[in-house]
């Protein structure tokens, strides 16, 4: 051992096995810090905020003053910053590395978007402020709407839906309103087996009966089966294109024509618009309504589960039924058309879906992103997204089964199955192994049409070096799972937690914190 003369070692001793995992008194492991709940470390007497003294008044709370202890612990500012900083470090994020969740489109979130959204002229604006004082905000909505309409080749757009599934709702409500307007009650919506779960859930929510459309062996909608099912009871067909197997629905235009001929509408789930933006316009394929997830294609942050934003582009046939409110340009002024003003020229609207006007904070971010890329950049976005996915598909299809790999290139995501893994090894094992390799796992067990599905979407914002590193990791895991490496079943080993017991969580749900003495008393 090398020593300074004061006795402080300056070079490490050779490691032996026992050195690698000694326990610590705190449970912390250097930079991997355990963090208790605010209910365990805070107190109702502590606050991290100072206020001016309140005026002395006689209260007018209607004799309903709250006198019980609410049970909300506070922390000082320093403790608050530390609590959430420590918790943040237990999360994986795009800022840390590739996040290949198929169909979720985890692309880089440019920080200019964040800066713009926080400009006081956008962030500190009340939704019911007089229209003369919010002309710039209305201009943002109008400008973004124009981009979305042009990029999709559609007639108009409803901006207010709060997220993708809310957009689906908007599209189906417009379809139902259009059918009712022509006195045509229809009861069935056709949905492919490979659809996102939100599609059938939304259709059911709107009062429709959901029927599955089968897929062909090459992973696409079975056109003949669809045509055979069309009839006077079918209101709409919901199709995801590119679909959740990562494939473009080649027959989309033929499908649309057949659906229209049968008097029904085409709803397109636009979750995967990222793959075709600037290269294909859904309007050219006969689509009547399609939601666009601004948090997918247009880079607004996912924030650990939202907020999303789901504007819906509409065909001319559906436009009159679009929800309130919307922004119109009248002369050099922007006007928010809401209940008060809609009667004159938008009397067929199906109504309002949400308080106020939608996800303004996401509109500013998405428009910032769109202007950054421009028409040329957005086309390159789709091109690189598809290129990256195909690179992954062809770099791994020798070690992982690619169920539709034989039918040509994929779009923005590469789909693999668990076929060929050793007995007892699953997609879950590979996913958890990826965690130890420093990656977020791919989407697993979706779409349902493929056994043990692994859906990999790298997005266009990954470099070749990052893709190569990911391919190296996934190849190694595939080889281990095929060779029956038992150690893989214990993964992850290096994450803040080992595999968690989801069965226990569901069987005895503990959804809120209870003070231990109260919890004990309850038992």
């Amino acid at each position: 051992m090398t020593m300074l003369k004061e006795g402080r070692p300056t070079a490490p001793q050779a490691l032996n096995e026992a050195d690698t995992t000694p326990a610590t008194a705190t449970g912390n492991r250097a930079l991997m810090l355990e963090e208790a709940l605010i209910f365990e470390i805070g107190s109702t007497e502590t606050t991290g905020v100072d206020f001016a003294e309140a005026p002395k008044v006689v209260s007018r709370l209607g004799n309903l003053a709250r006198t019980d202890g609410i049970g909300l612990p506070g922390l000082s500012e320093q403790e608050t910053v530390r609590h959430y900083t420590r918790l943040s470090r237990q999360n994986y994020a795009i800022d840390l590395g590739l996040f290949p969740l198929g169909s979720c489109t985890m692309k880089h979130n440019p920080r200019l978007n964040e800066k713009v959204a926080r400009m006081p002229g956008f962030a500190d604006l009340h939704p019911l402020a007089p229209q003369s004082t919010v002309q710039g905000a209305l201009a943002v909505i109008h400008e973004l709407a124009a981009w979305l309409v042009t990029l999709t080749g559609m007639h108009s757009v409803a901006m207010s839906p709060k997220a993708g599934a809310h957009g689906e709702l908007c599209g189906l409500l417009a379809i139902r309103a259009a059918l009712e307007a022509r006195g045509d009650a229809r009861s069935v919506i056709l949905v492919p087996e490979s659809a996102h779960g939100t599609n059938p859930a939304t259709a059911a929510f709107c009062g429709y009966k959901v029927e599955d459309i089968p897929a062909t062996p090459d992973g696409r909608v079975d056109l003949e089966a669809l045509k055979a099912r069309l009839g006077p009871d079918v209101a709409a067909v919901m199709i995801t294109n590119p679909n959740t197997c990562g494939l473009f629905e080649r027959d989309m235009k033929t499908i649309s024509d057949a659906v229209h001929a049968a008097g029904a509408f085409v709803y397109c789930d636009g979750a995967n618009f990222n793959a075709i933006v600037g290269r294909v316009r859904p309007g050219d394929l006969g689509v009547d309504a399609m939601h666009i997830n601004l948090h997918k294609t247009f880079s607004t942050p996912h924030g650990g589960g939202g907020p999303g934003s789901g504007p819906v582009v509409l065909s001319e046939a559906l436009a009159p039924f679009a929800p309130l409110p919307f922004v119109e340009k009248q002369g050099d002024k922007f006007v928010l058309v809401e209940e008060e003003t809609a009667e004159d020229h938008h009397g067929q609207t199906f109504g309002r879906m949400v308080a106020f006007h939608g996800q303004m904070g996401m509109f500013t971010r998405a428009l910032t992103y769109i202007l950054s890329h421009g028409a040329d950049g957005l086309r390159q976005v789709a091109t690189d997204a598809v290129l990256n996915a195909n690179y992954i598909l062809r770099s791994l299809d020798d070690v992982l089964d690619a169920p539709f790999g034989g039918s040509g290139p994929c779009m923005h995501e590469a789909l693999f199955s668990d076929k060929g893994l050793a007995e007892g090894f699953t997609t879950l094992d590979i996913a958890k192994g990826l965690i130890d390799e420093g990656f977020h796992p791919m989407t697993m067990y979706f779409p349902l049409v493929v056994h043990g599905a692994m859906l990999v979407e790298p997005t266009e914002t990954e470099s070749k070096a990052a893709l190569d590193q990911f391919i190296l990791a996934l190849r190694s895991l595939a080889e281990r799972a095929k060779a029956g490496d038992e150690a893989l079943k214990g993964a992850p080993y290096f994450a803040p937690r080992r595999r968690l017991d989801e069965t226990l969580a569901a069987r005895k749900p503990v959804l809120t914190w209870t003070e231990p003495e109260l919890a004990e008393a309850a038992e």
Partner: protein
Amino acid sequence: MRYLPLTDTDRQDMLSVIGASSVDDLFVDVPAEARLPGKIAGLPDHASELAVERHMAALARKNLSAGEAPFFLGAGAYRHHVPASVDHLIQRGEFLTAYTPYQPEIAQGTLQVLFEFQTQVARLLGCDVANASMYDGSTACWEAIGMARRITKRGKAILSSGLHPHYVSVANTMAKFTGDVLVHEAPTLEAVTDIDALIAGIDKDTSCVVVQYPDILGRIADLTPLADAAHAAGALLVAVVTEPVALGAIKAPGHMGADIVVGEGQSIGVGLQFGGPYLGLFACKQKYVRQMPGRLCGETVDAAGKRGFVLTLSTREQHIRREKATSNICTNSGLCALAFSIHMTLLGEKGLRELAVLNHGLTVQAADRLAKVPGVTLLNDSFFNEFTLILSKDAREVVRNLADKGLLGGVSLGRLFPDAPEIGNGLVVAVTETVTAEDIEAFAKALEEELA
């Protein structure tokens, strides 16, 4: 194209691995007639960060932001001071750029926050359990009506006239398609709420009564008699809170018998943002938890026995149940829930109570001052930080004229209830800790000029 890392060399190398000669070959499945030959015409090309920032800043400057003027708007969205650390923390990339915590081993940060958030919300609203958030208050309100239908198997909901009109509109839109019957009337300008009328309207077909607390006119009423009447008829009480800061000062709806309490969480941590993204709060009694919509986070242990958190009871949700799900909601308001939770942690019970007392104190002063303006009558006997003034003329015009003078003076009932001209002289005024004594004085003076 600063967000695209591939070089042309990379692209060529990758194409040769794929076995394609050009990127166009990767789009062969797109029918030829639908393939765009080049970039879409008529749109600008990519732009520098500086150029984009200039463009957006110019648009931002065309707005009169709340901080630039004496500001008194509420009616479902409130301007509170958000401590600097909140915005700093929610911009940590590990929170901002994470996805829904589907892989709990590497999402304990988000999951623990959600568990803490659920507990904070449940305690604030006075309920047993809360979910991990909804889109906003209006959609949470509709989801509560749907949940009450599933629980009671009845299809008629009675909506208080004091419920935010946008929330009523959302419910009306949805009810058209689900077949629910909604009973609702516009409010009248009285000091007392419509609780007696609501009680009288409950019958054996009623699934729930939906009441806002404080209501759209700022009035506060004890919900206990309403809860008792609803329960006696086998119906539920749904309470809606659009200003959660109020619950630092007044009784929680859950403690007055409400079965489901929903709300708009925007006023804690989230900011105005011209209406979104906001934060739907959703809480209820323990016995109804399996009928709840939306995500839930629960405590469990990992394989080594350590405490951890996971998304749970997902058999209610669309990605498992598909057409049989309790709701079609997928994405929620995770980042807004984080902001709410951080702000609430900074406040703690002590800070929340101080904030509430400060809001109420300033509001009492403002109400008394404005009521002295000739042509102005204060409607409310009770209020928290929002009240209604009855003016001597249509309030819409007054609001527009005040805006022209650089003063954002409340929300007119004409804008909120365009179909009820009889209440058009009403003006809803909110006063938070961001309002100064000078602002109140300026408002009073301007109102005096306007009504002279």
